[in-house]
């Protein structure tokens, strides 16, 4: 490890040891800005193309005074194959792959050992603030083979694994049927629920999987699991449920009904494979917050400046955690509304925001939308 790596490793570790949502926004900004500059400096020297991008950015990153001035990468850039890497192939421990539901190509990010370790710590640090530190029985609403093959891990697998530090035993309650479709394993579920009516539990599933393969079958059969101590987390976005016209309130009510718990024990969180270790659970006010080791900027599409409170824009996710790939400053393809820049009633400091769907699919309009089909002819 170089001296530079050691330095920001130490800085990142100290951020990971802090409570995630107590820093005053200005202090947090200045802490993050310095580390992000160092990380850009490090990345600049390790990837010629990225270095070129940083160099030609309109603002010199070394003299930037706001995180918003630093060179951000559109997240689609990470759909490269082979994946963009800031470390040698021998240092890559794992490759995370996005689910690629809205495009053909998945994003791929490579993790070296330090980045993988920080990813785990980041998720634990954030979730501890929402569900407490205790380990408990963990019901995974997915199949046991979520880990996939080899060193490549999908978005579902990454989310499931991210919650393992809160588990003392795990049960997967879905299986593949003869046609390779997911189905509920009633026996496993019954076994898990047995004698746990008064126990704190953790449940996780992708949003649409929970709905289609657990909530729907149990509702149809009129089954309530009677697990009032269940703490249910879900992620993966609402696109597929919107296609089925399922509103968030209906989802929460029905999910709570089949578990026999209160709807306020259900937490939706947003996470991108590309933004390792930084996830955004809903707070009690229905807002999302950035942790001390990350930040969210919501940019006005017209100016790319951060929007005012109350306004909508394109979400940029910032994180100091990844050093094995250029994932520090990612302009996502999601829209959000900034609720406030501080002072959420839940008590968490810094920006509070709500997602507002995807940036519509970007296509060339009108008569200029021709593809260059024959220009490769020599």
């Amino acid at each position: 490890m170089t001296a530079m790596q050691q330095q920001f490793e130490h800085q990142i570790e100290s951020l990971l040891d802090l409570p995630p949502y107590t820093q005053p926004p200005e202090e947090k900004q200045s802490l993050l800005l310095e580390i992000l500059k160092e990380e850009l400096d490090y990345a600049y020297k390790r990837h010629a193309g990225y270095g070129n991008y940083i160099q030609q950015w309109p603002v010199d990153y070394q003299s930037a005074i706001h995180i918003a001035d630093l060179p951000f990468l559109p997240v689609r850039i990470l759909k490269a194959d082979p994946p963009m890497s800031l470390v040698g192939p021998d240092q890559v421990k794992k490759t995370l792959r996005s689910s690629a539901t809205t495009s053909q190509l998945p994003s791929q990010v490579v993790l070296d050992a330090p980045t993988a370790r920080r990813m785990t710590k980041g998720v634990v640090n954030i979730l501890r603030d929402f569900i407490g530190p205790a380990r408990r029985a963990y019901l995974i609403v997915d199949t046991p083979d979520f880990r996939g093959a080899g060193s490549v891990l999908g978005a579902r697998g990454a989310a499931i694994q991210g919650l393992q530090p809160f588990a003392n035993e795990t049960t997967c309650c879905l299986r593949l049927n003869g046609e390779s479709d997911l189905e509920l394993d009633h026996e496993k579920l019954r076994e898990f629920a047995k004698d746990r009516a008064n126990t704190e539990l953790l449940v996780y599933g992708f949003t649409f999987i929970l709905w289609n393969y657990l909530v729907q079958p149990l509702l149809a059969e009129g089954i309530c699991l009677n697990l009032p101590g269940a703490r249910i987390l879900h992620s993966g976005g609402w696109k597929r449920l919107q296609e089925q016209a399922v509103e968030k309130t209906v989802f929460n009510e029905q999910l709570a009904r089949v578990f026999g718990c209160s709807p306020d024990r259900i937490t939706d969180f947003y996470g991108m494979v590309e933004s390792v270790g930084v996830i955004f659970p809903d707070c009690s006010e229905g807002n999302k917050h950035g942790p001390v080791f990350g930040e969210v900027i919501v940019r006005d599409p017209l100016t790319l400046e951060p929007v005012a409170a109350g306004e909508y824009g394109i979400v940029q996710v910032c994180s100091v955690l990844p050093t094995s790939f250029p994932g520090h400053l990612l302009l996502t393809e999601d829209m959000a509304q900034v609720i406030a820049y501080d002072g959420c009633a839940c008590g968490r400091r810094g920006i509070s925001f709500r997602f507002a769907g995807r940036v519509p699919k970007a296509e060339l309009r009108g008569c200029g939308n021709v593809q260059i089909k024959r220009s490769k002819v020599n």
Partner: protein
Amino acid sequence: MATLTALVQKVDSPAEISSTADRLHQAVVEEEVSPDQVIGVFEAWARSLDDRELDDLPGIPFLRMWLRRGTLEPIIGRELGCNALHGGWTEYGRARCKAFPVGIVGHWPAGNVEIQPILSMTCALLGGNAALVRVPHGQVDLTQQLMEKLVESDAGELLTRRIFMAAFDHDRHDLQEAMARAVDGAMIWGGEDAVLQIRALPFPHWARLAVFGPRISAAAMDAGAWTDPDESPSWCRRIARDVWQFDQQACSSPQVLFLERRNGDSIADFLKVLQRAFESENEAHPRRTISAALTSVICHARASWLLNDPAHQAVFPMEPDWTLLVGCGSDLPQPVQGRTLTVLEVDNLLDALSKFDGNVQTLGLGIADREKERKLASLAGNRGVDRIVKLGQMHVFAPPWDGVDLIRPMVRMVRHVCSTG
């Protein structure tokens, strides 16, 4: 009531379209209008558009110029014959010919050029036709404003009784079909998907279709032009104007500028001048809105250009206002739009042009060497380019457009040989 038919109306049933078509058909057969009469109304309309409050609306200066008698009369003479202006017959030996309207012309404008519903409609009216125009959702407000001015300028309802502007969602297939069934001709503009969908509608077997499909455009300069320090600011202003007009979404918008290399000359100075021209144009014509999708595309284009090749350069502000992507090579790059111009150095412009195909509509040129320009024009024409113009004039709407006339496709040239001759 002219004002009821000429202004944009929301349509919700096929029956509305067919009853409107009946009225339009009546208007065409009841009264012939000569191109001269049409131009008379257009001139009054152009004057009514000469209003400072309209200046900021997209395409208005251009529309004013198009509606002038000085622009339209030569087009009528060239396309329809020397006596056509006043609706007369033109003698050809023992025969005589005259242009008659095809009847009702349906217009399916593209969503990318704000004034296209109006421009397309004017072509049909000049041929004496009635116009049934489907106005895309994003163009309703501007079209409405312009049509209000036409209504004011056409007190005798010479034209307004021949026009119906229909607003309905593009996926209302029943209404698209009703419109297709009702027309005798169609002018179809747009991207590949749109054009294919509309062409497949159930038009009558006699209907004439003029299709203006998806194209891109390019610009090119030889070293004699771009290295001239006295001339380069003017060339750069022209390039910026071509990029800005229609927000670089028209088929005539340049997406790439090829610069022919000359030993010892660096493009660095030229790029600075081009950057200043883009900054000035942006100051004069800033964007008022942008879709998040386009911003996303622009950011991605900037990043992928610089990441893909460390030798690539780019110049852009923090805002998505404009972008210059700079490199070398003779292949046409993928168009980005959003005021993003790819500037490519090439050893010989002929190499770049020889790779063009039918996708390229317009070639904007800034060439100091006349002989070279002739060679380039011949090569470009041979490789499918339909318009070769000076930089700064890439959008000048003059026929032939896409290689075809604009008025003649929607008229019937009737030949009369006198029976007693």
